[in-house]
């Protein structure tokens, strides 16, 4: 009997290879779990029927294009849209023995940190169903946590892989910018977006990353990895210099339970042989959010201009002429958050305001890059909380956009610098997961995997949500 709550992709691969189970049995196990638990959790916007295909099932965030499979980006403006080609990341997964299990729920156009901005309803956190799974990739994180997929693809712009992973108790990697192709992925902010793996273990995460990564001729911002992905083996941290940015651990927005779990992880790292020291990233913490909430919306205002009702997606029924069609289509098709961001971005780029807002934000970005680079002269990896809080109640922050933006306080700065970040579950606080964020220099994924794997082994976190423990569920 296949226990989807505990099966890793690595183990599933072995079982298939040694013919202990068949692809059909594997698919059936996940389908059964989805039928049982997804009506309540709403991780999936679309589940693929068994087409007799082979391979390890993979859940795919609904901002990633899948040929012939509905792709909505969590928006009404793409309701019914069927891509006519696969994103490169999907092609690579298929070529490596994976099959698309379904498309997971997301904040609309990946804009949000709770999945409550999805036009199709929120996803619930499997650890406590009155709480959010995080966002924008809440569907992927919740699906993996609830045993509804062995692993998933997510996308991260300001923390949309890392933060849901923290809130749902799984492992999520935001890769070095440029190592994973964005071709076929619904664009939000082109200098920030990266597709990455969400999994139950660091090794699974590394395995999926190795399938995704590498230069794509269809995405000219991609490069090859300087060295191949190394699946982590060692469980000690001898010789690793771990930096703890004081502003990221002492900030008043961080809940005591989160602080305690992260502190325990720091002590563990020390015990495993790491050299742990403090560093300071003051500008990154103070100016990271405003910098991101200028640059990302500016880029989004450009990327979302294509949704005009002409070639695909929703078109208003009420247009008097073509200009009217564009405007009404977009007002009727977009939800509030994309509208807010498009408006902020358009304003920041408009004549007379460009230098003061967007131009200045680009300079702040340089400051953030330099601040991180300085820290990496003394340390191999930085360790911080991923999210200031554990999963909050559905509806708690939806009335206040800025309160919602604060969820990204700790994930955004390294995203702005193009740096990779790995969330590793560190423990529980009031029965809800807490994650640590490991940040490294560009192309340091192997270091992140090594540190993550060692911590994961030492921490011994059980990724099965508390309400779902106690044996196999039908």
């Amino acid at each position: 009997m296949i226990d989807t709550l505990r099966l890793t992709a690595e183990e599933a691969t072995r079982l298939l290879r040694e013919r202990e189970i068949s692809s059909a049995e594997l698919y059936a196990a996940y389908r059964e779990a989805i039928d049982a638990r997804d009506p309540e959790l709403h991780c999936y916007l679309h589940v693929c029927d068994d087409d007799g295909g082979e391979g390890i099932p993979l859940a795919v965030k609904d901002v990633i294009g899948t040929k012939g499979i509905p792709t909505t980006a969590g928006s009404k403006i793409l309701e019914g849209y069927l891509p006519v080609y696969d994103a490169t990341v999907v092609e690579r997964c298929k070529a490596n023995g994976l099959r698309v299990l379904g498309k997971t729920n997301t904040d609309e156009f990946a804009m949000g940190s709770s999945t409550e901005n999805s036009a199709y309803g929120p996803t619930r956190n499997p650890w406590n169903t009155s709480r959010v799974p995080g966002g924008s990739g809440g569907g992927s994180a919740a699906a993996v946590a609830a045993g509804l997929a062995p692993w998933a693809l997510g996308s991260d712009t300001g923390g949309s892989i890392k933060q849901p992973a923290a809130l749902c108790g799984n492992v999520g990697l935001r890769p070095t910018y440029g190592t994973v192709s964005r071709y076929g992925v619904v664009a939000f902010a082109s200098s920030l977006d990266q597709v990455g793996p969400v999994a139950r273990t660091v090794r699974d995460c590394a395995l999926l990353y190795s399938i995704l990564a590498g230069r794509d001729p269809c995405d000219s911002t991609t490069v090859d990895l300087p060295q191949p992905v190394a699946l982590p083996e060692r469980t000690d941290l001898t010789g690793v210099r771990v930096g703890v940015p004081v502003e990221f651990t002492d900030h008043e927005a961080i809940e005591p339970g989160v602080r305690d779990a992260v502190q325990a992880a720091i002590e563990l790292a020390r015990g495993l042989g790491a050299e742990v020291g403090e560093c300071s990233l003051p500008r990154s913490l103070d100016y990271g959010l405003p910098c991101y909430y200028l640059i990302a919306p500016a880029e989004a205002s450009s990327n979302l201009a294509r949704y005009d009702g002409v070639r695909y997606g929703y078109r208003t029924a009420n247009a008097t002429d073509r200009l009217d069609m564009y405007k009404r289509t977009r007002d009727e098709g977009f939800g509030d958050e994309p509208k807010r961001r498009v408006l902020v971005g358009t304003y920041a780029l408009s004549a007379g305001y460009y230098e003061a807002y967007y131009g200045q934000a680009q300079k702040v970005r340089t400051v953030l890059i330099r601040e991180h680079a300085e820290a990496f002269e003394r340390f191999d990896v930085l360790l911080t909380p991923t999210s200031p809080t554990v999963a909050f109640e559905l509806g708690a922050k939806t009335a206040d956009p800025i309160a919602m933006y604060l969820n990204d306080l700790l994930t955004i700065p390294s995203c702005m610098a193009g740096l990779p970040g790995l969330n590793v579950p560190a423990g529980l606080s009031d029965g809800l997961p807490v994650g640590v964020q490991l940040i490294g220099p560009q192309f340091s994924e192997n270091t992140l995997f090594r540190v993550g794997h060692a911590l994961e082994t030492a921490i011994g976190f059980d990724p099965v949500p508390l309400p779902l423990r106690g044996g196999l569920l039908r």
Partner: protein
Amino acid sequence: MAIDREQLLHVAHLARLELRDDELERLGMQLNDIIDAVSKVSELDLSDVPPTSHPLDVVNVWAADEPRPCLTVEEALANAPEREGDYFKVPPGGAT
């Protein structure tokens, strides 16, 4: 107040958004809060700091000028809200 109703209408027009009255009210207020918050970037004196547009500098990414298969006309029109022959059909008129 950073952005008044006139400016908001102008920005909405640039963004090709037809905002309803209740949206002008609600989004207008939220926009002002957001612009207020992001204006924090102007606190820093960055006159001698170069801007960053790309976190990873890749230069001269060439592709050979060779024809490759691409979408067929049918594929390209597959999701058209309205189509006539090999064309996407749209209402006439109304500036751009």
